[in-house]
C-alpha cells in the first residue's frame, strides 16, 4: 500500500475548507483499496457505503494522486457528457432523454454455465457490500474522466452463482426497451448492446459492478441501476444498465466488434501505442479541465492487470 505523505498535497488544495478535507479523507480510505489489490476486500479496508460523500472538486486522495492526477471530474460533467446510444448519439442530450428512465423494478438474470442461475433484483444487488472506488475512465474517443464510483466487485456476484469449470467468458447485455429508449430506432448498433470479458478479467478485483457515483445512486445516463466498470479498458466495455449476465465457453461477440471488426476488438485494453485505425490514442482530453494528458498503458493499471495478458500480442489482440 502506498504511504500517504501529507507533504505531497499540492498547494492548490490549500484553499479547501475543512469539510472538503474530511470528505477527501473518506475518499482516501476508499482509494487505498486500489493500492492494496493483493488483499483488497479486507474488512479494515472497506469504508461503509453511507460514509462516502465525495463532492465535486474534491482533490484526489494523495495515495491515488500519482495515478489519477489532479481532481475528480465535476459531477455535472460526469452526468452531462455520456455515451449511451440507446437514448441518443449526442453525448450532451442523454441526461435529458434518460431523465424518466424506469430503473425499478429491475432484474439482472445471471445464467449460462453456472451452478446457481439466479435472478437478482435491485435489493439483492444492493445487499452486496458496497464500497467507493475512484477510477479513471478512458473512452475510445480519446477523452477521460476521474469518477468516484460506488459498487462491488463483479467477482462477488459471480462467486454466488458459481461458474462451472467450462465457463471461460462472460457476456453482458443492456436493457433494450424501445418504449423508453428512443435511440433504439437508430441502427448504428445491433441491439441489445452486448459486451464481454474473459472470466479472469471478470474476476479481477478492479472489475466493478457500479450502483452509484459521487455517493449517490447512478443517474440513468450513467447506466442506472447497475453497470460494469472495467478501468483498464476503453469505456465502451463498461456496459450500462445490465439486465443479463451469461457465463459461456466461447468468446462472445460484442456490439462494437460486430459494428466494426477492424476497429473494435474483444479486449479493447487502453493502449497509447495501438492507435484506433482512424485516430491516435496517444493522448486524451481530460474532461472538465480543458487539458490533455498522455494516455497510459492499461489506463495506468498496468501493475494490477498486465499479468492477464502476458505473452499476448497487444497489437493483434486490440
Amino acid at each position: 500500500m502506498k504511504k500517504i505523505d501529507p507533504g505531497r498535497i499540492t498547494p492548490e488544495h490549500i484553499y479547501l475548507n475543512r469539510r472538503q478535507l474530511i470528505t477527501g479523507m473518506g475518499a482516501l480510505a476508499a482509494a487505498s483499496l486500489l493500492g492494496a489489490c493483493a488483499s483488497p476486500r479486507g474488512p479494515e479496508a472497506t469504508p461503509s457505503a453511507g460514509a462516502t460523500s465525495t463532492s465535486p472538486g474534491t482533490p484526489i486522495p494523495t495515495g491515488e494522486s500519482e495515478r489519477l492526477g489532479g481532481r475528480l471530474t465535476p459531477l455535472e460533467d460526469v452526468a452531462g457528457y455520456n455515451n449511451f446510444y440507446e437514448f441518443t448519439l449526442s453525448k450532451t442530450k442523454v441526461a435529458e432523454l434518460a431523465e424518466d428512465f424506469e430503473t425499478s423494478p429491475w432484474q439482472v438474470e445471471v445464467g449460462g454455465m453456472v451452478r446457481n442461475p439466479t435472478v437478482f433484483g435491485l435489493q439483492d444487488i444492493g445487499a452486496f457490500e458496497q464500497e467507493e472506488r475512484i477510477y479513471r475512465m478512458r473512452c475510445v474517443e480519446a477523452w477521460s474522466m476521474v469518477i468516484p464510483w460506488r459498487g462491488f466487485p463483479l467477482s462477488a456476484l459471480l462467486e454466488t452463482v458459481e461458474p462451472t469449470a467450462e465457463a471461460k467468458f462472460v457476456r453482458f447485455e443492456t436493457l433494450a426497451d424501445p418504449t423508453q429508449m428512443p435511440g433504439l430506432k437508430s441502427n448504428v448498433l445491433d441491439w441489445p448492446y452486448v459486451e464481454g470479458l474473459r472470466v479472469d478479467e471478470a474476476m479481477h478485483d478492479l472489475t466493478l459492478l457500479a450502483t452509484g457515483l459521487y455517493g449517490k445512486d447512478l443517474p440513468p445516463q450513467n447506466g442506472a441501476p447497475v453497470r460494469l466498470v472495467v478501468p483498464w479498458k476503453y469505456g465502451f466495455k463498461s456496459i450500462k444498465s445490465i439486465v443479463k449476465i451469461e457465463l459461456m465457453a466461447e468468446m462472445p461477440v460484442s456490439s462494437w466488434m460486430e459494428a466494426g471488426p477492424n476497429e473494435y476488438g474483444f479486449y479493447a485494453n487502453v493502449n497509447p501505442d495501438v492507435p484506433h485505425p482512424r485516430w491516435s490514442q496517444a493522448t486524451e482530453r481530460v474532461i472538465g479541465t480543458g487539458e490533455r494528458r498522455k494516455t497510459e498503458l492499461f489506463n495506468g493499471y498496468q501493475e494490477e492487470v498486465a499479468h492477464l495478458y502476458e505473452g499476448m500480442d497487444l497489437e493483434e489482440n486490440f
Partner: protein
Amino acid sequence: MDRKTARPIALVIHVGAWIPLATLAWMAWQGHLGPVPVAVATRLLGRYALTLLLLSLVPTAVRIIFGLHAAVRFRRPLGLYAFFYAMLHVLAFVGLDYRLALDLIIVAVLQSRRELVGLAAFAILMVLALTSIPGLVKRLGKTWKRIHLSVYLAASLVVLHAIWNYKELRAWPLFAGAALILLLIVRLPPVSSQLRRWRRSEAKRPS
C-alpha cells in the same frame, strides 16, 4: 447579372460568413459550449469551413446549369471564407486543444488517418487561397484553372475527415458528401456540355 442584383448577394455572403464565428464567440463567452468547449469549438469551426467550401462550389454549378456567368464572382469570397474557417479550425486544434505541444501533435497526426487527410486538405486550401490574389489569377491563366480544380480533391478529403471523426456513420458528413458528389457531377465534362446543350435548345425554342 447586373450590379444591382450582385450587391445584395455579396452583402449576404459577407455578413453571413461572419455570423457563425460571432455566434460561436458569444457561446464561448457565455460558457454555453458544454463540457468539452474546445472540442465543440474545433468541430464547429470545421463544420463551418466545410459548409463554406461546398457553397464556394455552387457558383460554378449555377453557371453551368443556368448559364449565369456572373455567379462566378462569388466563388472567391466564399472560398476565402472557407479557408478562413479552416485556418481557425487548425489553430483551435493546435493551440487550444494541443496547446502547441508539437511532439504530441506530430504523434497524433502520424497515427491518425483522420488528421492526415485533414492536414492534406488544409495544405491544398492554403495553396488555393494564396493563388487567389487577383493579379495571379490572370498571370497563371490555364495553370490557375488546373490548380483550382483541386478544390474538389480538398473537399473530398474534408468530407472523409468529417466522416472519420465519429465512431459510427453520422448524417451530417454523409449529407455533405452527397452534396459534394452532386456538385462534382455537374462539373464532369459530359454532364456539363449536355446541360449547356439543353439550355441552348431551350432558349431557341419559340414560345
